[in-house]
């Protein structure tokens, strides 16, 4: 959860911002003030922080451990939201076919969905970053080769590529992370290359070359930091994509195994009971998924506006 992309915008909420407006504002406090301009974005950020905390603290705050069979009672299966169990505790969001408390199931599912989404994004970012930078810095046939692969890959819908990969690899957390990385890296490579091509022309790179610095040092210490802003926006949007894609694949039965139920798998599990009117097994995990994706999208929208130099006031 120490993902820099997600924890970076968490600043304005975690600390109060006295004197952020007016006065001598550094780039960071200006960033915070800009972000706080949209109330919708602040709402999204607050929601996101809550969701991250819930995912992080799931084992602590859940009413029961939904995967400890000793805590489950088959007599409690498929109870409607708000009903009481035999031992007197209330299931606020009902129970599933195994008698699991849905609220606890959702907390644990959120943990897995977020973990898979963030992990795959971080890895894909790292891989795309290296390929994009290398392509832009060296140009020539390296550039052509990398960008051809990126173009071909991006001309196919991500769900199709992920589906085929999972059909081949089988189920498992590691496999779905591999599939999500494969699907995502090309976006980062393209984004990094585009901004690196612009940055490469600038004087500071020339200055670094004149100073006879090593190529690795120029690429990673000089070029890279200046290519980050657009990348942050893409990464934020991609976390949401990755979470949605994982949920979809798990729903189709090709993602995570039943022992590690993400939100998508919970929804899939409830599908068969939907037609008999037991809506809550599918409905509430879906709400959790929706809120997560929406919170990330709201934050990403505002980040895009702030970091877009063309909209700079």
């Amino acid at each position, binding site marked *: 959860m120490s993902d820099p992309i997600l924890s970076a915008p968490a600043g304005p909420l975690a600390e109060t911002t006295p004197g952020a407006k007016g006065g001598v504002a550094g780039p960071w406090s200006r960033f915070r003030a800009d972000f706080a301009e949209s109330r919708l974005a602040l709402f999204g950020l607050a929601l996101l922080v809550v969701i991250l905390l819930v995912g992080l603290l799931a084992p602590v705050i859940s009413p029961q451990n939904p995967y400890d069979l000793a805590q489950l009672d088959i007599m409690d299966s498929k109870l409607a939201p708000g009903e009481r169990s035999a031992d007197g505790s209330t299931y606020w969001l009902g129970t599933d076919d195994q008698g699991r408390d849905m609220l606890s199931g959702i907390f644990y599912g959120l943990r897995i969905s977020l973990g898979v989404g963030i992990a795959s994004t971080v890895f894909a970012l790292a891989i795309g970053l290296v390929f994009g930078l290398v392509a832009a810095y060296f140009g020539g046939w390296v550039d052509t080769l990398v960008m051809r692969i990126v173009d071909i890959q991006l*001309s*196919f*819908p991500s769900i199709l590529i992920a589906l085929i990969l999972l*059909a081949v690899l089988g189920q498992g957390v590691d496999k779905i992370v591999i599939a999500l990385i494969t699907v995502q890296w090309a976006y980062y490579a393209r984004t990094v290359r585009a901004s690196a091509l612009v940055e490469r022309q600038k004087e500071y790179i020339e200055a670094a070359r004149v100073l006879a610095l090593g190529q690795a040092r120029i690429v990673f210490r000089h070029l890279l930091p200046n290519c980050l802003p657009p990348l942050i926006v893409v990464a934020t949007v991609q976390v949401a994509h990755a979470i949605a894609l994982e949920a979809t694949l798990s729903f189709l039965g090709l993602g995570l195994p039943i022992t590690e139920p993400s939100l998508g798998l919970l929804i899939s599990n409830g599908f068969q009971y939907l*037609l008999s009117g037991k*809506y809550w097994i599918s*409905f509430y995990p*879906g709400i959790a998924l*929706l809120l997560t994706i929406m919170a990330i*999208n709201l934050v990403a929208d505002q980040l895009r506006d702030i970091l877009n130099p063309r909209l700079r006031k």
Partner: protein
Amino acid sequence: MLAYAIRRLGQSLFVLVLMSFLVFIGVFAIGDPIELLVNPQADEVERIRATAALGLDKTFLEQYWVFLKGAASGDLGKSFVYNVPALSLILQKLPATIELAFVAMVMAIFLGIPLGLVAGLKPDSLVGRGIMAGSILGFSLPTFWVGLVLIMVFSVNLGWLPSNGRGETTLVAGIPVSFLTLDGLAHIAMPAVNLALFKLSLLIRLTRAGTREAVLQDYVKFARAKGLTQGRVIGVHVLKNILIPIVTVIGLELGSVIAFAIVTESIFAWPGTGKLLIDSINQLDRPVIVAYLLVIVTLFIVINFVVDVLYSMLDPRVRLGGAAAAH
């Protein structure tokens, strides 16, 4: 133009062969389909006979070679499960998928562009903000979950719409379609709405962004100064200019609608290619998986090519192939 088309064709063929090879390696790695296909009580002789009959006793490269030779003559192998040619199985299911994708796209276009125009013309009004909020929601809603909620509301609670199948179909030029009968329309309504939702949100955003930029341009001010009616300024001058990127995106999204139909078809048991793919993956029906991919990839290549050509016709500033020096 011709040189461009030929080069594109060559590239496309290369991508197709490459894809088939990668998929073949991958599908080969999934596991031995014999375990699933042969009666568990069958003895060793029976198993060897079945393996030989399906060509599974050959080496990987031999199998790929046989496949390539067949593919060149339009034969993509026989389905292990249905024992009919995989290609005809897919072509038989393709009309259902294309109909669904087409209806969804039409919905997205005829709702998305007008809503995006309104939101772009009045970005700060309540209506404009409402449309934008709806579009963010549409982006965030997981497609498969919306499908479930639709079934929950319209099939289970209200009982208005059927939750699976194509319903009654009529033949148009020998191809069965659903949207010409009342029963068929009732069946296609929910899957199409489900599939359209994401594209609708996308088109709203695109149209809104284009409109906001266009209304600030000089030609719009000039059209207003000439005293043209608001309807004409918007309908002709603004719309015509923002339509170019929109048409491109619509064309490119057509492929992704067909891919996302996999999810929608699975939920609503729509008998199209997507459902066939999921079933084939679960049954390890290798020839069908490979054939599906080749058909879909070919479809994408054709769509992308048509979009590129259309784009260059719509926008004279675009020159195909980059090298216009020949003319």
